C-alpha cells in the first residue's frame, strides 16, 4: 500500500501513544485516534504486532548467542 508521509507520521504518533498506554486500553485508544479509518487502525495494529514479534525474536537471538558463548558449537574439521 502506498503511504503518504503525513499518514506515515500519523501512524507513528498513534503507535507510540498505543505503546505507552496500558495493554487493556490500547484497542480503545487506537479506535478513538483512528476515527473510523479502518485502514489506519489496521496499519497501527499490524505495527504493534510486529513490535511484539520483533522483541520476541530479539530476545530469542540474544538467548541463543548467550548459549553459544557458554557452549561453543563444535567446529567440523575442514
Amino acid at each position: 500500500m502506498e503511504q503518504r508521509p503525513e499518514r506515515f507520521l500519523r501512524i507513528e504518533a498513534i503507535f507510540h501513544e498505543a505503546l505507552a498506554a496500558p495493554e487493556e486500553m490500547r484497542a480503545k485508544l487506537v479506535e478513538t485516534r483512528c476515527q473510523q479509518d479502518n485502514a489506519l487502525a489496521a496499519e497501527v495494529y499490524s505495527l504493534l504486532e510486529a513490535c511484539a514479534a520483533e522483541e520476541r525474536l530479539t530476545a530469542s537471538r540474544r538467548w541463543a548467542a548467550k548459549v553459544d558463548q557458554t557452549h561453543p558449537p563444535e567446529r567440523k574439521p575442514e
Partner: protein
Amino acid sequence: MEPADGDITLLLVRWKDGDPSAFDKLMPLVYPHLRQVAAAYIRRERNPDVLEATALVHELYLRLLSQRKVAWDDRRHFYTFAAKVMRMILIDYARASQTLIRGGGYEKIPLNDDLPWVDVGSPELLDLNRALDELSSLDPDKVQLIELRYFLGCTAEETASLMKVSKATVDRELKFIKSWLYRRIHPLATAKAAGE
C-alpha cells in the same frame, strides 16, 4: 571565503543539499579507510577485541580536521556520510556472500547487538537494504538514524548527539522503525500472528 581544492567541507555541504555528484567525489576520501573498518566488522566473530567503526571514523575525521579539510560543524554530515558508505560496503559484501555462497553459507554475526536478527552477509541484510530504500521516501531521517546506529555502530547516545535529539527520542524512533522493518522483512510472520 573561497574553498580550497578538495575541500571536503564544500563537498559535504553540496551532498547535504542533494548534489549526488558530491557523494561520488567524497567517496574516495573515506572508502579505503571504511573498507578496513567493514573488514574488521566481518571478521569480528568470537573476537571481542574488535575495531570500533565509530572510533576509526572519528580518527579519520580528526585527521581531516587537523589538515583543515573539514570544519568542526561538519561532524554530523561527515558521520552520516561515513554511515552511508558503510551501508554500501556491507551490502556489497552481503551480495557477494550470497553469490559466492559455498556449503554452510555465512557466519551468524549480527549487524548490531540491538538488531540481532539481521546477520552480516545474510539475505536479511539485503532485505533490510531494500526496506530502507522504501523507507527513505517516507522519512529519510529515519534511514539516517538506522545507518548511524546499525551500519556505523554508533551508540544510541552518539546517534542522539549527531542527530541533535535526545537519547529517549532515538530509542523511541528505533522501536517504531524496527517494527516497520520487521514487518517489511517478515510479512508472513506478522500477518500470521495478527490473525491468531
